[in-house]
């Protein structure tokens, strides 16, 4: 009998318990199933404080190391036959037919490992890590190694070509014959990652990422109408080729899909004919009244504005109180995340729109790679505009592993983030997808939390919104205010809205979708400059809901006023745009969302109008304090004065305190002081609101780009 003791002692020979004597109940689950099956090990007995672990290859250093890492006692590997060990594993972890590696697959994996280690392409440590990830996910060992950049995709393709005895094809500088390339319809090309690269009368040469199985082959042959031969290609190159071949189609869909299928929900027309007529009639009515009854008209206008102000304030306060009173997010615990079976994790698409942000790409890649999610199940789309050559080149130069996909969106109008996202969505392979901005830093476990949340929420929840906040909140006063505002919005207001099943204006990033449902909804409106908010309302109208999860994505807060104003003006313009779109037919909106949803939508969007009113009310109050002007008194008779007074005392207090409460709720104790000065921030908000409002008429679809990377190393 040969035994190997790892770590603590050397080899010894004496009579020891065998696996056939039975598996100790206390030890049987010491090593997770995936590792047991991958490394063919099973802890089964304890002798003199040492745990005896049956191993098929007791001399393998990697196996010894992996086992020792998982058991906090001295371990001794005891050689057993494969059959003995597999039998023991099957008794401890009854096998699920679909999850157990077939003998062929195991042979392939071992062959791949041997090929790469013997040729010196990977180290033992890299192999060990890859094997461990394999034990958790069951994903191909080669793909794991490539995703962690232990080997390149070209090396893997070479290895696979050797294993499968298939020819390879290089596509780096390949110029496709579009007629040939488009013989395979786009859906199949996209689904199977395959594209015809050459054809004769009786044979098509088909570049594939991985060998097609029989069923896929039959489907492809039928679509091509002729036999084909598969050539293995680099996945990144193949992906780029498919994009180039079908670029026109993707561009067309990303711009026109919503506009053509649901024109009434698209913001390509800012104000509908009916709305124009309504606004003109209202304006004429007000002007006529103002001429005939100037003071009563002015009082009525002031009264209406005060009322709007009051109900918006009250609504926000009510939401906040509700959020303070209880925990409204869908909770996912650390234990649940730790217990997740990674073999069942779906492919997750991450859409990252980039524009003139070459400098940020390395950090972005680093942060995405830091996510606690198997890289082999990530489908990261880096969405670049065609004219942004610097960013495109930067990504190419980085030679990223194939879970990163460079997507170049052809130059066309409107050049907006939602159009880029629509483009990327067509290429998405994930069951779920999420948007992150280039500078975003999501909590590492956010994707897993979202997956668990989706499995737990009602079936009509198709979107899970994570919280947003800032990593450079301490940079200056502006970033601190911004963090106050986000804390209030994402810690209190949105969770309360989510719990109340109200239409949620989604945040710009970190909204996780069920991909199919998102496509069904027509995805984002490329003409709306707050496409996120619009989509939140649209999905609610269709009967779907949004839930909040307790996970945060840190963004870069705008630290410079002009840049901040640009960003905020776009948001306000978009809010008004969204309000106009959804109020084209208020009765239909009411029918679809119910009274509660209808009111919530209008009160939420109403905050954009409140920002427009602020300077007017501030001016009136200031003027009155200094002049006691009689005409101002006349503007606020009786009840209107009460409403205005309530706003002065309660409204201001509410909005200041919401900022304080949001920051406290988040545990950002250092920000509570700045929250007290937030009225100054409101001044900036109103400035931006007016800029956006004016732009709605002068340049409605213009996307005020936010410049990132101004955080001066605060990251």
């Amino acid at each position, binding site marked *: 009998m040969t035994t190997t003791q790892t770590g603590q002692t050397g080899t010894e020979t004496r009579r020891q318990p065998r696996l056939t004597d039975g598996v100790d109940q206390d030890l049987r689950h010491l090593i997770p199933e995936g590792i047991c099956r991958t490394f063919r090990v099973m802890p089964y007995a304890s002798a003199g404080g040492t745990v005896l672990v049956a191993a098929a290859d007791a001399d393998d250093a990697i196996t010894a190391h992996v086992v020792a890492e998982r058991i906090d006692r001295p371990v001794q590997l005891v050689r057993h036959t494969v059959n003995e060990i597999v039998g023991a594993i099957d008794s401890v972890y009854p096998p699920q037919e679909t999850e157990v590696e077939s003998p062929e697959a195991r042979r392939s994996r071992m062959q791949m490992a041997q090929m790469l280690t013997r040729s010196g392409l990977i180290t033992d440590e890299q192999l060990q890590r890859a094997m461990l990830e394999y034990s958790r996910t069951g994903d191909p060992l080669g793909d794991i190694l490539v995703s962690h950049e*232990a080997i390149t995709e070209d090396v893997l393709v070479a290895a696979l070509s050797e294993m499968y005895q298939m020819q390879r094809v290089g596509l780096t500088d390949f110029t496709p014959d579009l007629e040939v390339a488009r013989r395979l319809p786009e859906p199949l090309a996209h689904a199977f990652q395959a594209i015809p690269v050459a054809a004769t009368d009786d044979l098509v040469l088909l570049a594939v990422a991985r060998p097609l199985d029989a069923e896929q082959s039959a489907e492809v042959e039928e679509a091509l109408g002729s036999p084909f031969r598969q050539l293995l290609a680099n996945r990144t190159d193949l992906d780029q080729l498919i994009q180039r071949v079908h670029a026109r189609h993707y561009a067309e869909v990303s711009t026109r899909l919503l506009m053509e299928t649901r024109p009434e929900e698209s913001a390509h027309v800012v104000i509908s004919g009916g709305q124009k007529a309504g606004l003109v009639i209202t304006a004429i009515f007000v002007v006529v009244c103002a001429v005939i009854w100037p003071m009563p008209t002015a009082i009525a206008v002031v009264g209406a504005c005060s009322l709007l102000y009051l109900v918006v304030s009250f609504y926000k306060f009510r939401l906040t109180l509700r959020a303070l009173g209880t*925990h409204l997010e869908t909770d996912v615990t650390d234990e649940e995340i730790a217990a997740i079976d990674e073999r069942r994790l779906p492919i997750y698409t991450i859409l990252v729109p980039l524009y003139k942000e070459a400098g940020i790409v390395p950090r972005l890649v680093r942060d995405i790679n*830091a996510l606690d999610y198997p890289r082999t199940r990530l489908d990261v789309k880096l969405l670049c505009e065609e004219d942004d050559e610097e960013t495109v080149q930067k990504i190419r130069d980085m030679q990223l592993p194939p879970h990163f996909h460079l997507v170049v969106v052809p130059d066309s109008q409107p050049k907006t983030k939602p159009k880029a996202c629509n483009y990327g969505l067509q290429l998405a392979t994930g069951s779920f997808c999420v948007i992150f901005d280039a500078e975003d830093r999501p909590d590492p476990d956010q994707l897993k939390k979202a997956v668990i949340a989706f499995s737990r929420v009602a079936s009509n929840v198709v979107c899970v919104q994570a919280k947003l906040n800032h990593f450079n909140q301490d940079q200056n006063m502006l970033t601190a205010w911004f963090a106050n505002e986000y804390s209030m919005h994402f810690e209190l207001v949105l969770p309360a809205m989510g719990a109340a099943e109200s239409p949620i204006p989604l945040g710009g990033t970190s909204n996780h979708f069920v991909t199919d449902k998102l496509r069904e909804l027509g995805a984002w409106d490329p003409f709306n400059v707050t496409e996120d908010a619009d989509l939140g309302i649209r999905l609610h109208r269709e009967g779907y809901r949004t839930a909040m999860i307790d996970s945060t994505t840190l963004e870069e807060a705008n630290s410079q006023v002009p840049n901040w104003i640009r960003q905020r003006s776009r948001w306000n313009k978009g809010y008004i745009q969204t309000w106009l779109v959804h109020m084209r037919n208020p009765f239909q909106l009411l029918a679809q969302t119910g009274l509660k949803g209808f009111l919530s939508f209008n009160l939420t969007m109403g905050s954009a109008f409140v920002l427009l009113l602020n300077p007017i009310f501030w001016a009136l109050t200031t003027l009155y304090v200094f002049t006691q002007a009689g005409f101002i008194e006349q503007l606020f008779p*009786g009840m209107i004065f009460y409403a205005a007074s309530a706003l002065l005392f309660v409204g201001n*207090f509410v909005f200041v305190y919401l900022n304080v409460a949001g*920051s406290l709720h988040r*545990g950002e*104790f250092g920000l*509570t002081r700045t929250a007290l000065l937030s009225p100054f921030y409101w001044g900036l908000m109103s400035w931006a609101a007016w800029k956006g409002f004016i732009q709605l008429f002068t340049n409605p679809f213009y996307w005020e780009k936010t410049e990132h990377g101004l955080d001066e190393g605060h990251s």
Partner: protein
Amino acid sequence: MSTPVVVHTKDRLSGVVQLVGRRPNDIERRWWESALVFAFFTIGYTWFGYWVVVDMHVVGFETLDRLNRALMVWHNDPAKLSAIGFDYPPLATLLIAPLAIFRGLVTSLAVVPLASAIFAAFTMVAFNTMMRRALIAGPLRYAVLLALGANPMVLLYATTGTRHFVWIALVVTALGGLFAWYITADVRFVMLSGIAFSIASIAGYTSLTFFVLSAIMIGAILARLGADGTEVEGTVVGFASPTVYVIALWTVFNFILLLRPFAWITRSSDAAASGGLETFSAVELLRATGQLVLYGAPIAIIVLPALVFAGVARGNPFALWLGVMLGASIVMPSAAVVLRLTDSPMLMRNALPILLISMIGAIWLARSADEGSTLVAALLVVALVISIPWTIQAMKTYRYQNLEAPFAAAITTGESQEGAETLAREKVGIFSEQAMAEYISNNVSRDNSILTDNAQTYAVMMLTGHPEWFFDRIDQSDGPWKIALRDPAAHGVLYLLMSTSDNGDLVTKLYADAAAGSDAQLQVVFRTPRYVLVSVPAGYKPGGVTTGQFGES
């Protein structure tokens, strides 16, 4: 294969001693139980209060004054928010303003008990929640609530519309929030407590003392638990900012309107004060304080040392803090005398906050007693029950008081107190006001036709339900009113309503003869023991000049 570092939310919060962002293990929410407690006490106190006020005629004039102001908020000509004035903390009137939307409810006096019953019931809900957090069993909780609710001091102030339960309810709620915070460490309770204190601070300025002590306690407890400076500062700022904001805004408002930023303190007075400020020696103050506690809140005599013992000997900082709060509530009445902040020294109503803070202390002691909590709660019930006859007896004789003696007489004899005198020699009852109001209602209907000093005749105004009939000091502020006072006929005034007692009525001072019924031109059209209504002839000029400018009289 490198592993970059991204700061996780959990890492950021690892040094935070409080629970943020998630719900702790706390008691289950039972809105129905709170609703039942609220409904029970609101209905009970309103029903009992209606008997006390309408049948027994035990009603404080301060309550009528506030209700009249509330009425003016809605029904004056023009409707005036400024009617709330500066004599009372603004929310003491504003919070009951909704009760005055319907005139009929005010004139029937049905809202008088309701104006305090609601807040007393709210206090009981806060106590019930506190007792649930203290893990006191249901039957004992209800026994404690009933025993406390039946305390004669509580009964008096819960049923007669007084403003004291307005701020007390909010302070108890705020302290309940801190009670919950200490148990759960959930920072949200600090915020909720801060909001409650901010409302309490402009419903009763006394609450500011409890607020300051609470802010200090929060900082001290956090520091003791090892929180860093940022957490301590942020939490205290989050707690204090609503109150600081509210007080700052109220100060600015006072400055804008009165050019006296601190008028909210200097002009605030107890409308139903028992007399001028006496001079107290230290020994007298000590004795008066002892009597106040002994007669008004005897359980404090046991609870205070118990809290101090638990705090010092058993390392229970929350008990110590409650002890400090209770001590402060005991010391405050005499401090107000020393600082000359009151003209109504050592009033028995000062025992009410002492009693209620003693209750919080007792509940905390029950919670701290672990297995002995049931025994502590049972002892609390016994003490509260025993104190009922004791306090009733004390109310009849305690020297410094408002309506305690008539109230005690009413509930022990069941006889109306109309015409009785308080120990401060003030008449009890509202027959006089009702009679004058009835006459006015039957004979006057023109807006602004009765010129009156509303600071003295508010009760009549309120009982008419029509403040718009009166040309008062609120309508156009004091300046125009005083001009009209000197030439009432020129301002469309048909009547002068005056108080006959020498209590500072400006109309009575200027038209003393008319008030006495000896002015030939200003004929008395109706008189009651406390009021007189005289007619103002058209063209009347004070000094006996009658012009034909406005027609012959």
